[in-house]
């Protein structure tokens, strides 16, 4: 292993990292559960952001500081902000919340939750069989990731950029859909 500068990760090598991992996981899971059960969209969004930040911490624990940073910047920062923006745009208000509460009867939860519990059980059973010993964490900083990205995954990067371009064009198109053309059709309808 070549020498590299001191990084914050070295600090956490001792037992503190494991405790951080467990707390972050607990926070993530609780936040997600709260997010699912919320009636008000904005509350759910905030819980989701908390959950994403907790996942970022876990990522950091697993020696992927670059991924954790990205998670915070793009995922929590960009995507969630987009969500909040759209929710504000729709301004659902109290009526939607009440309707939501009507729909969320406990009975609605039973079917899917049974199904997902089976799914979870299968995960755990499969994990149980896989060999995953606790491993000495070797953190992979942005250097290694960058090297890999523009090494074997060159094609993947190009495709990702194409994907983002497509997303951009679609978003632009849908966004402007409410331009005069739809107004005209709207006018003709009424």
């Amino acid at each position, binding site marked *: 292993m070549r020498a590299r500068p001191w990084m914050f990760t070295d600090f956490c090598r001792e037992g503190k990292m494991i405790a951080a991992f467990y707390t972050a996981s607990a926070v993530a899971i609780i936040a997600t559960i709260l997010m699912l059960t919320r009636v008000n969209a904005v509350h759910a969004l905030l819980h989701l952001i908390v959950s994403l930040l907790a996942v970022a911490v876990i990522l950091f624990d697993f020696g992927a500081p670059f991924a954790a940073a990205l998670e915070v910047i793009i995922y929590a920062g960009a995507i969630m902000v987009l969500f909040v923006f759209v929710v504000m745009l729709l301004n659902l208000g109290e009526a939607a919340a009440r309707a939501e509460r009507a729909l969320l009867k406990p009975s609605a939860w039973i079917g*899917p939750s049974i*199904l*997902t519990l089976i799914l979870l059980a*299968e995960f755990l059973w499969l994990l149980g069989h896989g060999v995953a010993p606790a491993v000495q964490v070797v953190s992979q900083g942005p250097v290694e990731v960058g090297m890999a990205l523009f090494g074997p995954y060159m094609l993947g990067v190009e495709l990702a950029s194409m994907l983002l371009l497509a997303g951009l064009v679609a978003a632009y198109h849908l966004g402007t859909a409410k331009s005069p053309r739809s107004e005209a059709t709207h006018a003709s309808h009424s």
Partner: protein
Amino acid sequence: MLGLLWLVPAIPFAGALWLAVVGPRLRERAVAVIGTGSIAAATIVSLLIGAQFLSSPPASGAYTQTLWTWVGVGTFQPGIAFYLDALSLVMVVVVTFVSFLIHLYSTEFMHGDEGYSRFFAYMNLFVASMVTLLLADNLLLLYLGWEGVGLCSYLLIGFWYKDTVNGIAGQKAFIVTRAGDTAMAVGLYLLFHNLGTLRIQDLMQAAHDHWAVGSPLAVAAGLLLLGGAVGKSAQLPLQTWLPDAMAGPTPTSALIHAATMVTAGVYLIARTHVVYELAPAAQFAVAMVGILTLLMAGCSALTQWDIKRVLAYSTISQIGYMFLALGVGAWGAAIFHFMTHAFFKALLFLASGIVIEALHHEHNIFRMGGLRKELPVAFWTFLAGGCALAGLPLITAGFYSKDLILWSTANSPIGGALLWVGGLIGVLFTSLYTFRLIFLVFFGDVKTPVSHRPGMTMGGPVMVLAALAIIGGFVKGSFETLMTTALPPFHEAGLGVSELVSSTVAGVAFALGLVVAWYIWVLHPALADQAVEFSGGRLLHRFWFSDWGMDWLYDRLLVRPLVWAATINKNDVIDSIYDGIAAVTTTFYRAASLTETGKLRWHAAWIAGGTVVTLAIVMLL
């Protein structure tokens, strides 16, 4: 002269073709001239050939004329070839002569009928096929003539097609005869397969060489050919079609269902006599068929009220006599009886035609009466025919031929006392129903006035036939010797009943029948009805009237179930298999489309379910 043999079938065939194509446009007179002329020409040619044949018989006693090979495949080489020997000569001469008389008769009888040319076309086609049948050198050509006459009988029975009953009667006749023909066809396959040829003379020779007497193949062949003969000659068990065949015009009944076609079976058995000599069991079967039909038809004839049906049953009974003669080995006697029967039965039918025409198509004999003075021509000729049929001793031809049969039945090794007695009872029945007919129709008081008297073209043939019915018998001696050239002579054995004894006994039976008939239907007309009154009599009467219930039996046993099953299976049960397959696929499709509820959550749930199942499989395997 013999070279013109091919003209005998060719001229009527050409006449038929010409009338079928051009006929409808010709006037009635022209059609009559062509129709009758062609048959007259055929008769003259056959008479000339007969004369030359008798005066200077060819060396081997037979003359063969081959026109062209019909079907040529490997060893199977049947040709369109004609074979003339004494047997076929007599048959052809009688058939052509009687046909000519009947054609002459029907020119006037069918006068005014809108299908006039069609009638003569069919009649000519019939004569052509009958002559082909008689002159056929090989069994395949015989089969062609055989089916041809069956076809013409179908066409002529259903001639007045406007009335569906006639159509159905024609259909019935054709189907029943073809049922017999299938048996005959199988017989042909058997003969060809085992003996390698269908040429009759070679066949007989091969049978003689290869088959021992009583060999199962010979018996099978004999029975199969008997099946064909029984179908065509309306013998037991396929006789149900002949009474219904009376739906056709009377000249047809006279020609086809009395004189010629129905005796085709007799000719077939006579022609293939070697097979029967090799198979005594089959020959005995022929005798049994003969005797049983003889008696059954005799009884049924007693109960009929339609003049033509009485004559129809009497035809079945007389052919029973011919089969009996064939069965006991008296080949010559059978042919002799064929000749005399052709004359007097045609006569009876034509005379009854005059009677029917005179009483505006009245068929019921109980509504006729006292025509003795009204229609003298019909009466005297009918009387002559009737006596010939019943067998008035010494004068009529019928007596000689029937007596010959009875005598040979008594004296033949196969026959015996039982068959002889049966024959005698038959004579009694015959004279009984004949004189019943004569007394009811011609004696007593006139019940329906006579409107139309027959002209010369109807009276002439009837009188000629009457003459033949009388003098026909005297040629017995020379006829016998002529027959021996083609058919094996009759060899006496058994009871040794002399000629004189059997003829006197027959004469007594005839007289008894005459007296009883006179007593019942002239002196005490009411007696017949009383006889039927008491319970047994009514049942018996109905039973005999419906031809011993056989027609009813066939209808219930064969016709109804087949028709019912066919209508049930109209849209083809096998088709339902494929409709079934189509239905199954549609149900699957419909079930699959139910899962398309359009709700997002359901789709997500299906996906999740799918992953669960796949993981489960991963886990388990």
